């Protein structure tokens, strides 16, 4: 059962070939067996899962089931889940039981999914390796000495090892796409504003976006059908019609124009990664697409701009963690100021504190104009690069990550770690959708190809990814130790 996609499992459930209770039990057993090794889950919700599975089976029996009824999934521990611990990978929220469900959670619950548990992540979504979690690092199922990527590392590892057929993730600068690439699975970040951020613990409000990590683009389409949509409770939610993403998966790619940014294929790119990406691009050419060289001239500014804007926004969003209304509270403070300072120094991890300090600096008097405001202006210039590119091409293709999965503790230099995001942050700054799909391996470690689309054009991303997955088998591979 674990090697089936959601699409296949849904057919089996509807044909009564198996029950959601059996399926859920199967995945809960896999989690019990393999999670001690991978550390992909922070919380397993076995009782609730089996109860939800029973209800799903009743809906299936009464022929009142939808395409996701009875399908087990996991949620990244950044989404509030009512009555269930929601830690955001942090000691600060180790004691936090969410009093409500995030909108994305409610939508997937309404669609009939069954929650297996909450997945591990870099603390407050800050990281590219899942080495920054209070609950310990997550291991990459392809090589246990390597990272799965981050910050949605738990979700990526769990799907890769088939401890769950799919999981939610969030992506601020690449945190769905990069772990999907390093873990050999399919990860999509929708257009900013597509998926409600209500109940999704905030890191950087103008960048955060919820999305999915699945085995296939087809499965992602099914989940996004349920997750996307206007939410009046999120003031940044965009009221843009949500198409049925499954109906355009099989559109032919004839005459599709695919842009390859010259800045993504420089001499600095690992030639083996470059070869894998270009081989994938040529696969799409054989399906009728045309490859066009384009330029995103300000690409080298994307990392500096992102690492000024994101920490600035994080410093503002994480100001709420003061020990008073929720979360960790320091003991025996001398006074109120001491309570705030000790709570935050004790309970935030190093990376989070660094980003808060950096963000505070760039927003402070005397520096705001030169750093934050200037970064927001250059952000518009970066966004304009994409607008210009999409006048020439329909979709942009490139690597997701400059490396395959790297070893633990190998990127101790903070700046070196930040450079992992080089291919993903630009589209995040512009609010554009992006998907990463497996397209090869190097030394048995997965390589991911990224497709970036124009705003609200997730349908085309999923179409191209699905067509690629019809003629290749990279997405079907399961790490040998988890078969």
């Amino acid at each position, binding site marked *: 059962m674990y090697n089936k996609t959601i699409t296949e499992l849904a057919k089996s459930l509807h044909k009564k070939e198996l029950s959601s209770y059996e399926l859920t039990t199967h995945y809960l057993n896999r989690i019990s067996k393999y999670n001690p090794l991978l550390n992909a889950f922070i919380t397993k919700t076995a009782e609730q899962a089996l109860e939800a599975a029973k209800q799903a089976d009743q809906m299936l029996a009464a022929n009142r089931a939808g395409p996701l009824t009875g399908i087990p999934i996991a949620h990244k521990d950044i989404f509030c889940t009512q009555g269930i611990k929601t830690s955001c990978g942090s000691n600060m929220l180790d004691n936090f039981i969410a009093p409500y469900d995030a909108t994305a959670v409610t939508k997937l619950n309404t669609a009939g999914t069954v929650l297996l548990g909450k997945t591990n992540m870099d603390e407050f979504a800050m990281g590219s390796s899942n080495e920054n979690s209070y609950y310990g690092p997550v291991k990459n199922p392809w090589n246990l000495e390597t990272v799965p990527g981050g910050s949605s590392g738990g979700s990526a590892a769990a799907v890769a090892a088939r401890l769950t057929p799919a999981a939610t993730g969030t992506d601020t600068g690449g945190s769905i796409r990069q772990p999907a690439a390093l873990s050999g699975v399919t990860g999509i970040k929708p257009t900013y504003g597509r998926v409600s951020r209500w109940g999704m613990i905030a890191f950087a409000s103008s960048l955060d976006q919820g999305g999915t990590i699945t085995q296939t683009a087809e499965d992602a389409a099914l989940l996004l059908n349920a997750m996307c949509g206007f939410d009046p409770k999120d003031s940044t939610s965009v009221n843009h019609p949500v198409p049925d993403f499954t109906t355009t998966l099989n559109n032919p790619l004839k005459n599709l124009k695919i842009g390859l940014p010259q800045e993504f294929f420089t001499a600095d790119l690992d030639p083996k990664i470059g070869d894998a990406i270009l081989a994938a691009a040529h696969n799409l050419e054989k399906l009728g697409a045309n490859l066009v060289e384009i330029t995103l001239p300000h690409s080298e*500014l994307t990392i500096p701009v992102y690492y000024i804007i994101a920490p600035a926004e994080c410093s503002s969003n994480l100001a709420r963690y003061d*020990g008073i209304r*929720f979360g960790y509270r320091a003991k025996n403070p001398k006074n109120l100021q001491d309570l705030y300072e000790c709570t935050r*120094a004790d309970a935030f991890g190093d990376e989070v504190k660094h980003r808060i300090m*950096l963000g505070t600096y*760039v927003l402070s008097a005397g520096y705001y104009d030169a750093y934050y405001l200037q970064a927001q*202006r250059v952000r*518009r210039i970066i966004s304009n690069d994409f607008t210009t590119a999409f006048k020439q091409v329909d979709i942009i293709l490139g690597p997701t990550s400059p490396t395959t999965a790297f070893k633990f503790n190998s990127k101790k230099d903070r700046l070196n770690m930040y450079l992992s995001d080089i291919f993903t942050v630009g589209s995040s700054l512009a*609010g554009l959708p992006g998907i990463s799909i497996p397209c090869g391996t190097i030394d048995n470690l997965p390589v991911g190809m990224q497709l970036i689309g124009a705003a609200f054009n997730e349908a085309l991303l999923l179409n191209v990814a699905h067509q690629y997955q019809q003629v290749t088998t990279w997405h079907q591979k399961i790490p040998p130790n988890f078969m």
Partner: protein
Amino acid sequence: MTLTPAEIIKIGLLARIKITPTDIEKYADIKKIIELAEKFKNVDTSDVHPMAHPHNITQRLRQDIVTETNQRNKLQQTAQQTELGLYLVPTVIE
């Protein structure tokens, strides 16, 4: 650029994060990230409006009518110290 210990302490105060003398060295590498920003400091942005947000939308407004119910007890369950519906903090004014 330089980032002096005094500046780090000041940022710590603004960020409400306790900074001990041994922490100062730990935060000194913030300087490297800020130095990255030198790459875009001199880009000509004289005609460019800051992009705070990816979309051309403004804050939605709603009717000024009460729609939410009082859920104080439920929402205060996440707080560690409360009494009579109030959040307890160390004495501020003596």
